[in-house]
């Protein structure tokens, strides 16, 4: 345990140092993170304005709040591990990681968390600025704010487990971009990134309920926006817990099977 803590500290330091070296790419990455929710914010504001000020249970200002929070939640739970893994397997770098005495997921977690800590202040500033510019209305009950903290944490863990597991597809095929893109498209639609899920057709909502995407983005957003009842929040936490379990088991199985079939490309 102590050794693991030491590993995290070292990884934090390394990532921080690396990130400071590549400030420009960090900035570009953030632009991408901001732009997508911003575009949908603007589109839905336009829809709402031309529909007389609201769509479903969302007013124009609700949309602003929704997409601003979404931007932060996505920033918090986002991973780029699939690209990283493809690169590692393709270049044979994974062999080194496998030689290390600790599970490679730890350095990935540390890497992910530290780069997010670094971008968080800027993202919060941008979020506040956008919330002000678009007059976002965000009015959660105090309990929802409290519940948001564990929910967001769960969202991060679940998404990390699932995407890390998905990234392991690189063990079986070196051309994983199709899998990644499929995943991202599903994510876009079923997590609430394109529109609040309650505005989508009913069958899509059902699908979103049974798949994990909603629970790692849309659910935390709706919670903080103040759109959920305590019962709905509890259901959501339950779904997150279920996916946490599924994700953990999947990761164990896939990792075991994957390391067996792995043969470093180029080695």
């Amino acid at each position, binding site marked *: 345990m102590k050794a693991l803590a030491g590993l995290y500290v070292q990884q934090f330091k390394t990532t921080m140092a690396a990130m400071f070296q590549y400030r420009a790419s960090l900035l570009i990455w953030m632009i991408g993170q901001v732009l997508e929710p911003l575009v949908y914010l*603007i589109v839905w504001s336009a829809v709402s304005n031309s529909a007389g000020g609201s769509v479903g249970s969302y007013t124009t200002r609700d949309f602003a709040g929704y997409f601003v929070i979404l931007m932060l939640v996505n920033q918090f739970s986002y991973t780029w591990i699939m690209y990283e893994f493809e690169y590692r397997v393709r270049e044979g770098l994974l062999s080194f990681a496998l030689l290390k005495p600790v599970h490679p997921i730890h350095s990935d977690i540390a890497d992910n968390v530290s780069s997010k800590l670094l971008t968080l202040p800027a993202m919060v500033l941008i979020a506040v600025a956008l919330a002000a510019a678009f007059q976002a209305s965000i009015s959660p009950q105090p309990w929802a704010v409290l519940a948001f903290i564990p929910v967001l944490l769960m969202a991060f863990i679940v998404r990390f487990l699932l995407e890390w597991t998905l990234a392991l597809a690189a063990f079986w095929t070196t051309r994983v971009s*199709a899998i990644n893109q499929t995943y991202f498209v599903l994510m876009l639609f079923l997590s609430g990134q394109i529109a609040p899920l309650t505005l989508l057709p009913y069958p899509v909502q059902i699908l979103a309920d049974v798949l994990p995407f909603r629970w790692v983005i849309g659910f935390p957003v709706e919670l903080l926006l103040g759109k959920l009842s305590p019962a709905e929040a509890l259901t959501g936490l339950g779904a997150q817990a279920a996916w946490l379990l599924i994700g953990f088991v999947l990761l164990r199985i896939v990792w075991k099977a994957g390391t067996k079939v792995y043969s470093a490309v180029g080695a």
Partner: protein
Amino acid sequence: MTFLRLLAAFFKVSVVGEVAYRVNFFIQLFQTFLSLVVSLGGLAVIFSYTDKLGGWGPQEILALVGVYFLVGGMIGLVIQPGMEKLIESVRDGTLDFTLTKPEDTQLIVSIGRIDIWRLIDILLGLGIMTAALIGLGEKVGLWQAGMFLLMLAAGGVIIYCFFLILATLSFWFVRIENILTIFQSMYEAGRWPVSLYPPWLRYGLTFVVPIAFATTVPAEALTGRLNWETLLGAVGLALLLLVISRVIWRVGLRHYSGASA
């Protein structure tokens, strides 16, 4: 024409290289299909709540989506693969080999890698545009068709120069590979008419990252909204950027010191 000869040669090489991986065709087909589902699905949801978006009707937005796929396909077919390769080869020093070739390096770099499966996006884009125009019930006259092609060409040149300038930055900042991936997420903004956006973003998407010229402007030409200022602006900017990107390329190339050497 050296350009056409080389393009044909590189195209042939890509075809020969890719037919061995026919599964990639289905993968791309699948990805394009997914992207289409997102686009049309998004539009269906939005237009179930309104009938005009920023002054554009559903069929007009559909035409814009067609242009979006068409231009996105062109970028993915030849512009982006070449520029990605350039950045890679600057980082690992293999640009040395390209430099020794007798043809102009910029030309080889620009068309040296072709992702033939992205032709699917181009075909799909054309299909969507046709469907949209039939839906509009509008007869596209010679004038509109001509203007559309002109704006498409200008937009293509502008985007190419933009990519080239970004990729050329790798001569100074070696690790910039995600500059190009980020373009992808910015390009998403081109799905919608730029007139929808608040002024600061509209100017950003026009002059900082010239996505407006790639999608909105050709779509404007197609739906008969193009005005003279935009037309001249697009052509002028395309010519200007051609010169600027060439200058930056040459300065950058002088700055290159083979990483492997």
